[in-house]
């Protein structure tokens, strides 16, 4: 018993070291911009950089649109599959996993071929079109996470009975989705949203190949040309991701509790 405990702690310490040592080293390095003393100069430079603000703003906006698009597609789809087409669930689950298997670069080349300026759907002919295509691409990348989050949320409620209870009380589909289904899976949707946010903020391949002024390409560019700033940026990006994750944790405490769990 005692020995088991001991080895458990050793394994834990090794894991923690593997995780934290590079992080601490990066923090330490990012603060050494001024010779001889620790300072936040690198952070000041990064945060004060116009291109940082512009690209970060662009990516945040892209993330927001991606989340809206993802929610609009995934919530009704996952709901309908649970309600009416449960036999399709394995197939849909497989499809939503494809973006994890197919590299983003393949998707992006597909887009460029399909939607080039002389194709029937010339998304790439204009800036707005390209931005829209980027958001659509991001929604695809985020699909595995969004779908799983929402589907897990739907599992905690009795979708069919709640739908029927609302229907018999006179509600139409719009009311059912906005007043019954969405509020009960809101926390799940939000955790999907934060995962999407974390993915979009750091995404490089799509943004770069579609030549968008996003945060990912900026990170790469800085990383290739400066010494201290990339470390500071890495820490900032890490803090954003972690912030998202902790928000998911906090929000999950406010989930409406279901009184009757199916099965």
């Amino acid at each position, binding site marked *: 018993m005692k020995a088991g405990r001991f080895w458990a702690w050793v394994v834990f310490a090794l894991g923690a070291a593997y995780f934290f040592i590079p992080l601490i080293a990066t923090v330490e390095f990012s603060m050494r911009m001024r010779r001889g003393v620790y300072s936040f100069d690198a952070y000041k430079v990064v945060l004060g950089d116009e291109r940082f603000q512009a690209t970060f703003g662009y990516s945040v906006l892209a993330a927001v649109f991606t989340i809206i698009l993802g929610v609009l597609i995934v919530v009704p789809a996952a709901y309908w599959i649970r309600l009416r087409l449960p036999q399709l669930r394995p197939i849909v689950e497989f499809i939503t996993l494809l973006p994890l298997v197919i590299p983003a670069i393949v998707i992006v080349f597909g887009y460029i071929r399909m939607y080039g300026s002389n194709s029937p759907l010339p998304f790439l002919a204009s800036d707005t079109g390209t931005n829209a295509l980027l958001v659509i691409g991001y929604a695809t990348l985020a699909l595995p996470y969004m779908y799983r989050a929402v589907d897990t949320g739907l599992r905690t409620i009795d979708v069919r*009975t709640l739908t029927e*209870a609302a229907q*018999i*009380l*006179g509600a139409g589909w719009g009311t059912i989705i906005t007043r019954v289904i969405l509020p*009960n899976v809101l926390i799940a949707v939000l955790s999907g949203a934060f995962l999407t946010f974390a993915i979009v903020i750091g995404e490089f391949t799509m943004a770069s190949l579609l030549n968008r002024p996003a945060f990912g390409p900026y990170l790469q560019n800085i990383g290739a040309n400066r010494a201290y700033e990339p470390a500071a940026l890495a820490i900032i990006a890490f803090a954003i991701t972690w912030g998202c994750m902790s928000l998911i944790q906090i929000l999950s405490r406010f989930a409406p509790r279901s009184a009757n769990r199916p099965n």
Partner: protein
Amino acid sequence: MADPFLSIQHVRKSFGATTVVEDFNLDVERGEFVSFLGPSGCGKTTVLRMVAGFEEPSAGKIVVGGKDITRLKPNQRNVGMVFQAYALFPNLTVAQNIGFGLKVAGMPRADIDARVAEMLGIIKLPQMADRYPYQLSGGQQQRIALARAIAPKPKLLLLDEPLSALDAKVRVSLREEIRSIQKKLGITTIFVTHDQEEALSISDRIAVMYGGKAEQVGTPFEIYNRPATKFVANFVGTLNVLEGTVTDAAAGTVRVNSEQVSLKGKLNGSKSGDTLSLALRPEAISLGRQPGRDSSLSGEISEVHFLGSVIRVRVGIGGNTVSLDTFNSPATPPPAVGEKAEISFSSDDMLVLH
């Protein structure tokens, strides 16, 4: 019944190749409380869901208040429903749950509040308005579900085994409460159950279902005492079945285990030599010869269960066993297993099962 309020006419439902409900017919009067009683899988829920609009009949029609509603969507029917699994909206408070249907219908806020308060009074939970469903017991949740269903003043109230998830005590008190609220509001109600005691105790009429058909529709008294088919007789109440052979069809005599029983006028259609199933309710049988009982059979006591005020005795008669209840009397000891015994009954109470 001149003008039934709800009329289910020749309704059939098939899922793919399997027919689940066959030629189901039922007329329900305004304000009547009708139970669907039957074993699991006999199609009770399916019929109820067709009345609610969740399933579309494969054939036949459903008429409410003179209007054919067979093809209407559930949200156009103005029907209230209580589900077995409570089905309260977890994200809404009790008051918001009860007011849901009213809000959907576009009722002004103040009217909703007044109606919700009235409903909370009717179900005797006035202090629960701001609670969430997870803060309520099963019985309370089911009462809220009832209030939610009747708040929009539906034309029909449908209940699908609303009590089966509750424990026995709550079940009894809530079924009486449902019945009294139903009577007070005069709302036409269909109540699905597979619990015969529940159906017998609160219904105006019962439709006993088997294999997707209504085997018999009648008052609890009729269903219990005059079952129309063998299935109804067996399913409702405890029944002792004896095998008999018709000895003289004209005189109405039947031989049961080498003794003769006279069943004049009950053998309609049987010929001499036919084998019959004869049934007796336990309460129609007494131990020993009793005045006023015209028939008797002799046997041997095979089991005695002392249940307090009642003693349940099982008596072997030839190859059959009948069970009967006698009241405990402190002065006389209960019968002993292995004793010879005679049972007596009135031949009027004997059911001939065809």
